[in-house]
């Protein structure tokens, strides 16, 4: 990788100050950023490592929500009884990200800030209607994601935590890309008092999206059979050497039905 300046500030304020340098980037778990830099596809001049910033990691229950710090590692979410008891699908999802070693480093905040179209967490955040809390504001999930690798985060904005409302039922099913093991199609289904939300990652050519026909069908009848008739258009699906758009569109239906079954 190209060389860069390295800073490990102890507070969010100092981190924001360090980000003021041109081409600065936040380093959370580094599990996507560092490989990208190693291949010289990214070349930040300054890395701001959040590892010393207090208060960014941890899992707690606050009223009707599970609140997870941005620097919480995937492994800690996957192993949390609190998460499993409150939001089964979220705990399961965290345990399916990458592999065990990646889960020991990778973080919730890093995943959301990067917004890889094949990442897992965006599906949970969108389906659960989570709120992303930054040093500046609170952003609801529906407003947060902006296409491939893009979010509404500003240059000097750092995710501090995410609030996940607790649903009645939830599940995440993932069809892995056979090579990379990223989601080729990942579907998160959440049923709560206010309705059903279905979010799909890995498949869409603009990144994570909600499948509203499925949501409506499941709101009426929360059963796998209820969405069997929902036609998924291939038009907005990713097409690559691992599968064309038709295949991905088909998989969205299969994986969604399996997620509904798993949430029971």
């Amino acid at each position, binding site marked *: *990788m*190209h*060389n860069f300046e390295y800073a490990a500030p102890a507070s969010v304020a100092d981190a924001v100050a360090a980000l003021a340098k041109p081409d600065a980037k936040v380093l959370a778990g580094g599990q996507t950023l560092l490989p990208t830099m190693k*291949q*010289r596809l990214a070349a930040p001049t300054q890395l701001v490592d959040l590892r010393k910033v207090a208060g960014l990691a941890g899992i707690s229950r606050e009223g009707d929500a599970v609140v997870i710090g941005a620097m919480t590692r995937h492994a800690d979410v996957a192993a949390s009884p609190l998460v499993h008891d409150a939001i089964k699908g979220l705990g399961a999802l965290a345990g399916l990200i990458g592999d065990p070693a990646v889960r020991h480093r990778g973080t919730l905040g890093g995943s959301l800030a990067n917004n890889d179209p094949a990442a897992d967490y965006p599906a949970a955040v969108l389906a659960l209607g989570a709120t992303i809390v930054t040093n500046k504001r609170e952003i609801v999930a529906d407003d947060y994601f902006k296409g491939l690798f893009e979010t509404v985060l500003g240059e000097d904005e750092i995710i501090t935590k995410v609030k996940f409302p607790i649903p009645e039922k939830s599940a995440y099913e993932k*069809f892995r890309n*056979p*090579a*990379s093991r*990223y989601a080729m199609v990942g579907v998160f289904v959440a049923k709560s008092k206010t309705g059903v939300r279905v979010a799909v990652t890995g498949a869409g050519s603009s990144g994570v999206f909600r499948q509203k026909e499925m949501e409506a069908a499941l709101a009426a009848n929360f059963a796998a059979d209820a969405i069997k008739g929902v036609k998924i258009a291939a038009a907005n699906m990713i097409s690559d*050497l*691992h*599968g*064309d758009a038709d*295949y991905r569109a*088909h*998989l969205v239906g*299969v994986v969604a039905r399996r997620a509904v079954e798993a949430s029971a």
Partner: protein
Amino acid sequence: MSATGLGASVKRTEDIRFITGKGRYVDDINRPGQAHAYFLRSQHAHATINAIDFAEAAGSPGVVAIFTGQDIAADKVGGLICGWMIHSKDGSPMKAGAHPALAQGKVRYVGDAVAVVIADSYAKARDAAEKINVDYGVLPAVTDLKKAVGAANIHEAAPDNTCYNWHLGDKAATDAAFAKAAHVTKLDLVNNRLIPNAMEPRAAVGDYDSGTDTMTLYTTSQNPHVARLVLSAFIGLAPEHKLRVVAPDVGGGFGSKIFIYAEETICAWAAKKIDRPVKWTADRSEAFLSDAHGRDHATHAELAMDAQGKVTGVRVHTLANMGSYLSTFASSVPTYLYAPLLSGQYNIPAIYAEVDAIYTTTAPVDAYRGAGRPEATFVIERLMELAARETGRDPAEFRRQNFVTTFPHQTPVIMAYDVGDYAGALDKALIHADYKGVAARKAASAAKGKLRGVGFSAFIEACGIAPSAAVGSLGAGVGLWESAEVRVNPIGTVEILTGSHSHGQGHETTFAQLVSDRLGIPLENVAIVHGDTDKVQMGMGTYGSRSGAVGMSAISKALDKVVAKAKKVAGHVLEASEHDIEFKDGKFTVKGTDKAIDFGSVALQAYIAHKFNGQELEPGLKESAFWDPTNFTFPAGVHICEVEIDPETGIVNVERYTAVDDFGKLINPMIVHGQVHGGIAQGIGQALMEGAQYNSDGQLLTASYMDYCMPRADSVPSFNVDTIETVCPSNPLGIKGCGEAGAIASPPAVINAITDALGHEDIAMPATPAAVWKAAQKRPMKHAAE
């Protein structure tokens, strides 16, 4: 059988250093003052090099030197060679384009080395390389094997991008068999291009001692002596006695580390040029681009049979993709390592094969685990399975009906099978695979909405490569014997210097088992020395499942000489005729007496030389041998694969995998089984996951583990592996070789299982979930059997 002798599953002695992190691979070697090389590679598949501007790069921090093709031309560094001459049907020699280690005037694939930057650190070399500006004149890429003839010319020396049009067999006899056939089975097959992916990437450290004018190259090689020979005699870096090649612990090869590559050549040359050690270690992305790939055939195949189900002929036309340059042994792979195996385990009276070797603007293609034999096995075993289905025959019984049953058996395509028991392997495999239970298991899968299928592969390979004169007559540039030296030390410990090279095969254990068994000394008194041309006499290295059958036979022959000499020494010590001396379990005894002396004491006597006349019997105890095989060996076996397909997703689960192989005598069954496991996983990888893909611009799309799908622990099952034994008659140990069998046998077994499950033949390798899902949408075309 003793606990450590022949046939015992002795735990590997080399493991201790590997499990404690003390293995010593090339990248673990650092020489004082070393600089680091980074290779600037072409981003274009096919282009002229108009100019290279490295002025800015030369001033980049830490840069020591930058070299291009002009520099190696000026130094008269020879091009990389292909060591096997193939002649076309019309008698003309193959057409090999020049292959300079750094491109000269033209690049021919994405990854072709254009310049080398040498700097104080690898990172600085890479930083500097980004500042080099190459002015390319882009030419059309040629990536489609079927359209390469007539496309843009890649080598002036090879019109129509054709290296050779070769054939084997009797065309007239074969055509006559097809004219009379009661049934003809036809298939179009693609043998997908694979990227070897030994887990240790290639690496090299060049080191030059100006005081002695000696060059040393530490490199990831399966055959360091062959590397030295080529680097010396053809590339001209240094005379052999001034060039030392060391291949220390090597992290897997699978063929890809046989070849003499550009980067290793440049590291050795540049070390002398800058009078400083030069180190290079490929990253995985470079390995994908620049390691020689494997397979890549497109074949039309036909099988003729009579009304009784007897196979009467096989006819094959293959296009073989050679890539952009002819790699070290590339020309032999789709010819003599391929077509002579098209007879499989069957008595087939007429076979005719045509092979067109074609250049494309892709990475060079050369031997990869099995090399030619997997391609042949895929052809014949897919044909046999389909022929059985089309004519309503059980695939196991159809094979049995056509098995060769009397030996020796001369096939119509060169090979003379020496011994085998093909039905014996089939019978055992049918039991292990619970073939009788298949129908019930298929029904159970169907009840769950799944598709289950079973596929066979009765493979044969020719290995123990090879009788030197025979391969010489077929065009090989070298003999394929092996060497050994047995050095008995004065206190009776033994060093074996072998020309074989271990890069995972466990030679340090198996070779020591042989020595321990023959000399009656404990394993820990034996050291196996390999991989260093300064220590070991000329040898040919490890590939083609040859280290047991050829390498150990050389050791065996040298051990015979040691025992014969030791008997003479013992005779003097025990005051008896050498003819009355018997040697057993490490003791020399005088026949009919209780006079005895152990091996260690004889060794000591051989060196102190007090008890015999040094003019009549030379002091010392050290013997060497060269073993030249008298025939190929013919490992064979039956593999049965059972899969379950989820038609909703296209995911194929390998539910059961059974292998019953005949490798002749086994030295260490644990290691043999391990070789089979690894080969099967690679074959399942080829069948289900792996496949190099270039786009029409010649960019490699599967250029990392993000896109090239490697078998992982959860993509294969545990395997049911067993053996039968017919003793190989052509070497003293009765060994046939086991290294490639799994990779040769398994792809057709898997695809035959998938096509059985699908009910039609329309699926290519790799049968990825997406491909299988699409195939599962097709209405099954009813096989005659159903």
